[in-house]
């Protein structure tokens, strides 16, 4: 019995019950459609989240001064701890494992009016060290970022984001031109881009020493940020402890006083979020497979009904010489054909929808480039085929046991 022949036989029987075949096929198509859509949605969300972390280096610690809550060394509680240049030097010198380090300082206001000629606009000004570009993952498009000489000599230079160029310079080339900030002129020495949130492209960086000098020669900093040489939680926990120890000694607060320093651990946050998303992915698989299983149970159930309805036909086929094996084959192939074709239709529809969404999705921070990879699709197809055979097996054995005498008995 060749394949085309038995396929023809199966197609004949399926066509004799078009509505039932359609409904069964629909349930399977829906199942795999949902599975793929859910997987793609999970993928999109998880990519969105991962992407939102691209803004900053993942293995970084951000240290802010806080307020003490424990009396220490004769000092009362609620003392405000302000970080200074000394802390920056201490941390860069004494904390093992620090890779790139910068402090950050703001003028009186974070956002200030900048002008170039007649053009003006409001932008965020960040005063920082050269290593800041590693922390924020700034991509230098033209010129350079801040360097050590800028810091040492407190030069009046600025590096501007790509989104700053057009409002201030229009078609003009900004390189080497001057921008005015609070009455001080800065020379533009570089233009940077940033993969993170679009607001990151509207920043202007100036040397921290310059900003401190212009703000009354202060040595205060708002925060100290650094990346770690190793990217695992044990390392960042040890470094956090070391930071607390060193700064506690310097500012005379208890190293146990958690509120004296605020430390933002990006690695910990990242790990927490990614673990949530591996949970989401597991859940998505669970729901998707559940939907598909329901579809396949439907096929199995409908095949059982179909076998029962076709008892007479099966009995006749047996009388005409059908072996039990050929009856099993007929039913299993029928189940396989329904699940196979409708599964592929569901798969195709889902892929189409995913593609459409990917092409037409407005850029946002939460959902990006949903996709299902080839391995997942092949896996789903394999599951489908196996399940198709399985869903046909029970009804097939039921069919093989049909007694032609009983089946053909005239009422």
């Amino acid at each position, binding site marked *: 019995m*060749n394949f085309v022949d038995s396929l023809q036989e199966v197609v*004949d029987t399926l066509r*004799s019950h078009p509505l039932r075949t359609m409904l069964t096929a629909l349930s399977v198509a829906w199942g795999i459609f949902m599975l793929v859509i859910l997987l793609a949605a999970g993928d999109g969300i998880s990519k969105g989240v991962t992407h939102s972390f691209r803004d900053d280096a993942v293995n970084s610690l951000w240290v802010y001064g806080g307020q003490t809550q424990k009396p220490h060394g004769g000092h009362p509680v609620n003392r405000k701890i302000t970080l200074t240049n000394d802390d920056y030097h201490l941390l860069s010198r004494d904390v093992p494992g620090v890779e790139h380090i910068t402090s950050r300082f703001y003028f009186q206001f974070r956002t200030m009016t900048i002008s170039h000629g007649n053009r003006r606009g409001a932008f965020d000004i960040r005063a920082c060290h050269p290593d800041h570009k590693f922390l924020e993952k700034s991509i230098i498009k033209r010129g350079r970022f801040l360097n050590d000489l800028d810091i040492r000599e407190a030069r009046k230079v600025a590096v501007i984001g790509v989104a700053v160029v057009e409002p201030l310079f229009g078609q003009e080339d900004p390189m080497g031109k001057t921008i005015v900030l609070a009455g001080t002129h800065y020379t533009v020495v570089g233009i940077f881009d940033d993969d993170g949130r679009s607001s990151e492209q509207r920043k202007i960086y100036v040397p921290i020493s310059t900003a401190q000098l212009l703000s009354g020669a202060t040595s205060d900093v708002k925060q100290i940020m650094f990346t770690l040489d190793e990217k695992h939680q044990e390392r960042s926990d040890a470094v956090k402890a070391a930071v607390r120890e060193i700064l506690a000694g310097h500012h005379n607060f208890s190293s146990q006083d958690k509120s004296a320093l605020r430390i933002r651990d990006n690695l910990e946050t990242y790990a927490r979020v990614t673990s949530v998303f591996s949970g989401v992915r597991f859940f998505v698989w669970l729901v998707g497979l559940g939907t598909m299983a329901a579809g396949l149970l439907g096929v199995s159930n409908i095949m059982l009904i179909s076998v029962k309805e076709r008892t007479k036909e099966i009995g006749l086929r047996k009388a005409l*010489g*059908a*072996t*039990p094996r050929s009856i099993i084959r007929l039913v299993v192939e029928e189940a396989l054909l329904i699940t196979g074709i409708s599964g592929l239709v569901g798969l195709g529809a889902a892929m189409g929808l995913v593609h459409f969404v990917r092409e037409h999705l407005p850029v946002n921070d939460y959902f990006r480039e949903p996709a299902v990879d080839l391995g997942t699709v092949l896996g789903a197809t394999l599951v489908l085929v196996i399940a198709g055979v399985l869903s046909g097996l029970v009804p097939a054995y039921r069919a093989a046991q049909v007694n*032609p005498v009983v089946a053909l008995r*005239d009422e």
Partner: protein
Amino acid sequence: MIQLDNVNKSYCMGKGEDASRLHVLKDVTMRVDAGEMVSIMGSSGSGKSTLLNVLGLLDSYDSGEYTLAGESMSELSPTRAASLRNRHIGFVFQSFNLLPFKTAVENVALPLYYQGIPRKKRLRVALENLEHVGLLPWASHRPTQLSGGQQQRVAIARALAAKPSMLLADEPTGALDTETSYQVMELLTGLNREGLTVVVVTHESDIAAMTQRTVRLRDGKVVEATTNAQDPLVPAVTL
């Protein structure tokens, strides 16, 4: 062709305590020679359908010996029985049992499908058989588009398609009017004259009278075997 020796068959009725055995065939001994046309007669419940099922390898028997074309039929596996049915036996049923979603020619070709014959050849052979029963013009009609007599002739063509050694007809005229019944019987006797062994189960004596020999069953026993008058050339066969 067929030799039955003291074949017994009983069914279990009910379950557990109430179970009782219904003895359907009691020491049935009969013989059908190749090329014969034999009718099995009996009232309802006489065991004639069971006998036909045993003959057609659709049902098993408990004791005795059944020899078909020189081969013992005891202890058959379902697969072996299927293959013997396919090669040796053509079935004709009271209610035709054509598959409604297949055309006449596809119905006729079905036994050949189970012989593994390619589709093209199947359909060619099926058309030849349809021509034999005079239904070539109706080859692409579905059963519902055919009259009862035509349906039964399609069923006979189907029974012939695999070139069986014998035809087993279970009340082949039971669902037909008298005129059509006679046409169908004419077709069957014609096939018999061409050399086919035919066994017809019926409860109508006029139908039985068209066969060469009649075996009467009562309560599962063969009570009488008579040679029918209209064909004096065939000698009476003793049991």
